[in-house]
């Protein structure tokens, strides 16, 4: 019983840490993720020209059903806009034929005067699952800049999800 009490008390302590950590009470950096379904992406041109991006994959993914490459933009919501720190970006897709330059992570300053693109992502593939992942490392953006992913979507492939992690250093 005593062991159980101690265990649960430590549990409570962990809970307190878990609560406090996001605010940086203990850690030097707090990272906040935002996870988006692929269906949040949209064709990068006039929507009337989109005859190929369909919803599917448990209704959370977006598929380029065309035989040609088509462009998409995948907007994000910045959760720590006052910071300049994008901690990471990730994009998960189907298929193995992607190249490192197929997807970008873009930023535009609040006034539109500065447009930047993050350094090329690392591209990893899972031959068992037949999936690919782009991962962007830490990247500095202007405070209150907007951020969106973009991809040259390969024919017949899916965009499953994307994720942006922002961080604040205390």
């Amino acid at each position, binding site marked *: 019983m005593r062991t159980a009490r101690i265990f649960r008390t430590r549990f409570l302590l962990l809970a*307190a840490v878990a609560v406090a950590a996001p605010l940086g*009470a203990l850690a030097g950096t707090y990272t906040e993720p*935002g*996870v*988006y379904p692929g269906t949040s992406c949209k064709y*990068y041109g006039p929507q009337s020209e989109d005859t190929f991006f369909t919803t599917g994959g448990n209704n959370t993914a977006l598929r380029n059903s065309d035989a040609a490459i088509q462009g998409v933009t995948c907007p994000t919501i910045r959760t720590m806009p006052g910071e300049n720190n994008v901690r990471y970006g990730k994009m*998960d897709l*189907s298929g193995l034929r992607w190249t490192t330059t197929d997807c970008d992570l873009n930023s535009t300053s609040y*006034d539109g005067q500065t447009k930047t693109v993050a350094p090329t992502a690392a591209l990893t593939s899972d031959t068992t699952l037949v999936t690919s992942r782009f991962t962007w490392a830490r990247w500095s953006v202007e405070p209150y800049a907007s951020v969106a992913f973009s991809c040259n979507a390969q024919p017949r492939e899916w965009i499953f999800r994307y994720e942006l992690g922002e961080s604040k250093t205390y």
Partner: protein
Amino acid sequence: MTISKTGLAGVALLATVVPLDAFGYTLSRVYAGADCRVTGVQANDTYTQHSFAGMTGIRNGDTVYRSMVCPAARFRSQYSKVNSAVVNVAGTGWTALDCSLTGTSQDAQTYYTAPTPTFKANTSKGTPEYIFGTWSLPAYATHAFRCAVPARGVIHKYEVGEYSNDVVGAPEHWPVTITPGSACKFYGPQGADESFDPWGGNATGMRNVLSSERRSVVCPSVRMYPVGILNNYSSIGQGAVNVSGTDWSPVDCNLHLTAWDGLTTLTAPTATLTSNSTTSTSQFFWDDIWHGQIPPYANQAYTCSVPPRRWIYKYELQECAYDLSAECQEKMDVEDDFPGVAQYWCHC
């Protein structure tokens, strides 16, 4: 003694976050302009260009004004106050009244409009901005921007600063994220969308304009708490979709989650559907689902088959990093060293 010390440490740690609770603060979110969309059915959008706006914005490539809607979620919807809002645009021809911020009550019976923003032309750089001040908007109402975008004009970003005195991640304050229905989109290719218009309903709703046919939408959410605290798996405290009319079936709307690798797909049990004949509205509701079963970093979306002439007013999601199962509560309650501990570990 060990218990007292560690318990004290826990209290001390909690105390470090309490001061924030005492004063309140502004929780800002910045949206890419690419989240905006034209009014009317998307099949009629022959002019917007994200590729000409750094992929983050939206540009009206037409030679005349075009109306656009920019839906914004509420992440601290329990409070009745918007502290600030900004829309940053580019191009010539913008005037002071071209952008507004509108809201709709949670029962969709009342429309609101924020006070007229301050318009800063910033003529030298050609980067006007609309700055909205403090606005009292009822709890759980939705909001969205609407702009008349001049020819070749760009919306780079929009931003909402919500009031909050909540502690981020505190177990008793898991927030409900409310997204306006205008963030939904036609299920198929947008060029085939002859049915959904985000403009009416104060720019916060999405309506099937067809007079006799159903059409499907997908309503994507952003997950802000995608990792559970216990073994990384998490739960959904509640989900809801609010719609117009009383002629819906419980199976018309569904809630989906997909693991990051696609290996786990979850579709929620059929929602509880309640209708209000007085307001002619209905709500799909999911309560305490997937107790500790959602894989980390899974993504989420709703789908609905929308009857003709019906609106989707809003959808909401309360994420929870804890195990909501009855087993969890029972276990915690049996071990009664800390009465009430179950409320932290087994509830949102």
